[in-house]
């Protein structure tokens, strides 16, 4: 939290809360007026038309601000129209043309591109896929095989299949994809001086779900765990180290004590609940991390704001009702209620002995059934997770994660169609990451070269 709060303080000192608020409303207006414009494909992206990194405005956003004749949530459309003929980013293309033809009015590096027909280059694709999915350099022998084969695509897919089954992919590449989601902290992990939970369970679960054609929705559904040998195990899992209360090393918790019927995959491990909730009555950090990492929306950046009427009620008296806070907390607090019956770190002697950190406790707080996720009510964390894992943002987030993992960037405007096809195919592919990656390497974004 610390970093976020610091960030918040700096936001607020620049009066940025209003801008965050502005983004949501103005972004919606922009996408209504120019529905096919580059960033209107998803809620997460829509702020990019006006913001570089929210809340900072880009040149187009700055132009809108200068031309505003009233409050941002009502007057921004007029401002947009008034600068249609201008060229805010100075790249030689008018704002209107950028908005209509897949440019970006606030980013000089992105202009409507002349239609270029890329050709798919199997040699390029093979070099890339070996590096990304096998952690290997292409060898001359394999390149020769590719040159000789009548069916290069078949060779690419066979190689990819082998890569996705390799130790490199499962133990290393997938683990690195999980780092941001788990945020391991050695000092309080299984080997630390104060052990609050064992995040190795989290890595194993993530890697298991993301490999071997398993259903990626298990990230928010799994009621099982995965043991050190890589085997799926059911039920509660005993702690690996005995509790230790006195002395230089303190072991508070370990294993996976949460009852299976209250689990929802990665967001209910002992590490996740302990590390993000800690001692908070209302686990805002936990909800925000789940929303950010599994639905791709970062509330701290003003993304995914879907305010609920009469919220925040400020149930734990943190002063979040003030307008400067309500901007985000009218979404975040209802998002967090469902987490409030799951404990964070429990430090009483009895709780340590009973391993109660990260367990379910119906009497912990009274707000469990009052929550909302993406404007829909949710009665429990199980409902929260069910709604989340079947939503479009979940699919988009997974596809974006795999696209970024390969290309180190987001899909560009001319690649949007291929990207959309990727995430939309997930239900048909039974949410297999392997199948998604097989689709990815077939795109021109991955293997395209100018003729």
């Amino acid at each position: 939290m610390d970093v976020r709060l610091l960030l918040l303080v700096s936001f607020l000192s620049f009066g940025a809360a209003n801008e965050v608020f502005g983004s949501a409303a103005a972004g919606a207006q922009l996408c209504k007026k120019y529905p096919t414009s580059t960033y209107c494909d998803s809620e997460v992206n829509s702020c990019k038309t006006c913001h570089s990194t929210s809340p900072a405005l880009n040149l187009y956003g700055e132009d809108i601000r200068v031309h505003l004749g009233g409050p941002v949530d009502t007057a921004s459309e007029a401002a947009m129209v008034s600068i249609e003929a201008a060229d805010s980013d100075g790249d030689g293309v008018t704002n209107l043309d950028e908005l209509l033809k897949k440019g970006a009015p606030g980013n000089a590096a992105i202009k409507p591109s002349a239609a270029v027909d890329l050709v798919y280059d199997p040699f390029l694709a093979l070099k890339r896929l070996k590096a990304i999915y096998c952690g290997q350099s292409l060898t001359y022998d394999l390149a020769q095989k590719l040159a000789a084969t009548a069916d290069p695509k078949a060779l690419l897919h066979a190689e990819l299949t082998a890569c996705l089954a390799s130790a490199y992919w499962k133990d290393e590449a997938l683990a690195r994809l999980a780092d941001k989601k788990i945020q391991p902290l050695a000092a309080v992990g299984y080997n630390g001086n104060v052990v609050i939970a064992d995040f190795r369970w989290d890595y194993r679960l993530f890697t298991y779900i993301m490999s071997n054609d398993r259903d990626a929705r298990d990230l928010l559904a799994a009621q099982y765990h995965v043991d050190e040998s890589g085997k799926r195990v059911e039920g509660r899992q005993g702690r690996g180290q005995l509790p230790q209360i006195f002395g230089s090393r303190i072991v508070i918790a370990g294993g996976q004590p949460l009852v299976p019927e209250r689990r929802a995959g990665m967001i209910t491990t002992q590490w996740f609940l302990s590390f993000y909730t800690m001692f908070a009555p209302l686990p805002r950090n936990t909800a925000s991390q789940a929303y950010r990492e599994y639905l791709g929306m970062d509330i701290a950046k003003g993304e995914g704001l879907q305010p609920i009427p009469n919220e925040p009620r400020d149930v734990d008296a943190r002063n979040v009702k003030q307008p400067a806070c309500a901007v985000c907390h009218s979404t975040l607090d209802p998002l967090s209620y469902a987490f409030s019956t799951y404990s964070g770190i429990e430090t009483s002697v009895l709780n340590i002995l009973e391993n109660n950190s990260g367990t379910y406790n119906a009497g912990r707080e009274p707000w469990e059934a009052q929550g909302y996720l993406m404007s829909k009510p949710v009665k429990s964390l199980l409902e929260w997770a069910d709604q989340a894992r079947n939503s479009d943002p979940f699919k988009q987030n997974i596809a974006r994660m795999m696209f970024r993992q390969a290309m180190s960037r987001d899909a560009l405007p001319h690649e949007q169609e291929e990207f959309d096809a990727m995430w939309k195919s997930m239900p048909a592919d039974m949410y297999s990451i392997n199948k998604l990656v097989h689709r990815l390497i077939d795109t021109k974004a991955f293997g395209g070269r100018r003729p």
Partner: protein
Amino acid sequence: MKARRRALLLILPVFALLSASCNQRPKWTGFGRSSGAAVPETSSNSIPVASETGDVGSSEPGLDLVWKRYRAFEDGLVTGLALNKATFCQELGKQSCIDKVHLTFLGGNDPFEAGLYERAQTPTSITAVAVDRVVLYACSQRLEMDRVAASAAVVFKYFPLSGTPTSDQLKLQATDLYHRFLARDPEAAEITVIQSLSNKGLAADKLALMMCYSIGTSAENILL
């Protein structure tokens, strides 16, 4: 240890040579992605930016490149030059170049000890330095191994390492190195450049190292 000292002795003249004569080596520091929309370069001694959001790179179709990151880069050297992965590159004889010392700049991240949860999105100019160092380690190690192996040499086997190679021998050696690093045959123009070195009066082992280093650090080996 003697071998290492010998390699170090080699390094200096090679550097001098490279900067003087080898402007044929593709330049890839700076990392503007060929479209002219250059990626903003971070100041040379800062940690690379750890963010994969946003629109870095070219918006022009088909000009974008993929960074061959630490593991694949390492594999290219270890497999390509038939080295021992565990020992081929140890800074100060102790710490793995790839997994520890240069990890971040070669595109990796260490979440556990360094607390880095994200890798760098693009290479920085320090990446170039790290690549240079690691490739030089790998090439000079293979050179020393082949010097000892003599007739059983694995990579540097097309001419005696103490002598003056002919231009045909250079061509054979270069072709083999192109296969090993870049998985393709060299183009005629590339061979011509290398053959032009044969009459510069360089010792054979220096030429061998220089070829290995130049091809191994070429942009094509790092940005796919």
